């Protein structure tokens, strides 16, 4: 039982990280029809910016988390404006037609990895944030505070995203743009600006995940590859483009992975997520919360 709870806590924490990245991927897809293959690198850059802020500015952890989200979000906005938006012209300026976007995403992923390599080098950097003593829940159950931070921050961000989308004028505009850009224009919404907001939020979520993972792992150039695959699995398990689905999928992938590694074999850790993916797709091809008719953000 003790062992099970430990595994569950680890699975839940890493699942929250997957959920944040998956949420960004699903959010961007639901709004812009962009399947963003460079999202893992955005996560990596977010983590590096976090480390740099930690090293050179001495910001406290919550402040540098927010700062990294904002900076990475802006980098994402720039990438989308400069590179991706050109490709949308083929789809009438609103959507992406054909394979161009997928290729461009992969290309961007390689470019960002190499840019990061040139700036920060190949050596993994430590992210030595001190969170204080672990929480002792019971005599036997001890919870490292970094895990509490991961779960807490992820929950806050998810609730904040929900409130933003459902209860603010800007959030309503973002949903309108996600559903139909032409009609959104006729509502007087500045559609190009909202596309930037949408993409920036997606990237900021990935940056938060990177900064949250940093302290329990090293920060390194290739860290985006593994998470991208897991986050895609999570997004697809939950129903691609469905936001609550992305969170659910992330948690399921994290917990499956942790329990599998704990009870079956640790060396096959990366396989369990995909077994879960295959099983879910066999039973529900559109994902757990996915519907066959595309319902958007």
């Amino acid at each position: 039982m003790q062992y099970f709870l430990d595994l569950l806590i680890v699975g839940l924490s890493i699942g929250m990280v997957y959920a944040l990245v998956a949420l960004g991927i699903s959010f961007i897809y639901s709004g812009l029809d962009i399947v963003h293959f460079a999202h893992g690198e955005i996560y990596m850059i977010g983590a590096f910016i976090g480390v740099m802020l930690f090293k050179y500015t001495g910001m406290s952890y919550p402040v540098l988390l927010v700062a990294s989200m904002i900076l990475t979000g802006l980098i994402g906005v720039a990438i989308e404006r400069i590179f991706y938006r050109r490709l949308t012209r083929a789809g009438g300026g609103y959507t992406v037609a054909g394979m161009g976007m997928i290729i461009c995403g992969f290309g961007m992923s390689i470019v960002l990895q190499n840019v990061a390599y040139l700036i920060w080098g190949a050596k993994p950097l430590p992210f030595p944030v001190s969170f204080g003593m672990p929480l002792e829940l019971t005599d036997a159950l001890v919870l490292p505070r970094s895990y509490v931070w991961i779960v807490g921050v992820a929950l806050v961000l998810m609730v904040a995203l929900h409130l933003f989308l459902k209860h603010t004028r800007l959030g309503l505009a973002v949903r309108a743009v996600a559903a139909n850009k032409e009609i959104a224009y006729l509502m007087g919404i500045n559609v190009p600006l909202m596309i930037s907001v949408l993409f920036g939020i997606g990237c900021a979520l990935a940056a938060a995940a990177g900064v949250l993972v940093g302290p329990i792992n090293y920060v390194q150039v290739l860290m985006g590859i593994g998470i991208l695959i897991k986050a895609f699995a999570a997004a697809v398990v939950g129903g691609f483009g469905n936001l609550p689905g992305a969170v659910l999928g992330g948690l399921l992938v994290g917990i499956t992975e942790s329990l599998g590694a704990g009870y079956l074999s640790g060396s096959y850790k990366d396989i369990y997520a995909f077994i879960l993916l295959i099983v879910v797709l066999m039973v529900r091809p559109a994902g757990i919360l996915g519907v066959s008719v595309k319902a958007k953000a």
Partner: protein
Amino acid sequence: MLKIDKLEGGYGSVQILNGVSLAVARGQMVALLGGNGTGKSTLLKAISGLIKPWRGSISFDGERIDGLRPDLIVRRGLVQVTQGKEAYPALTVEENLRLGAHVRKDRAGVRRTLERVYEYFPILADKRRQHSATLSGGQLQMLCIGRGMMSEPKMMLLDEPSAALAPQVVLDIFRIIARICREGMTLLLVEQNVRMALLLAEYGYVIRDGVVHIEGPADRLISDDNVRLSYLGGTVADRDAAMNLRQ
């Protein structure tokens, strides 16, 4: 209020508008008539800014608006009321209405306009928390008209408000449009329902092959053979030719 001069435009290399000119005076309701594929929708898109015209000009309230981004045109007070099917199905009735007020920042004013829209359309007030996907065709059209009113525009472009509605519902919709006009709104009514549109409007334009084919005061157009025939895809000459064939 709205003046369009020799407007040309289209999609890609396909020219749809071949030099349309029309004018709408302040407080006036003008009907824009034409069958399918005559360029009505393209003209509307050009006025709203969704496509950039190639040549010619559009001015609104004394200023050029052709080539402006659509949201900036809405900010100037020119709003397109979409067909009912263009409501956001996944959003609630009230969210749809609030979207219409996106350009306004005065919360109290928006609430007042919202109450006014609910007074026009009591059925929308009853269904304010429902997703608009659950509304009937007539209710969706009311929602879109209400959504257009939310920004308190100076002028509204109505895109076939009677499309795909039952005759009784069409009457309700036109009654509301007449009321909006009486209360001082400037309207350009794009319609396929020729008779109804000409009974309401003061002036009418019939568009065909991307140009204004016939224009005139509504009461004169309504009895004009050419107008009726334009809809059947012919002209008086065609009719005469047909008559000759029969003999």
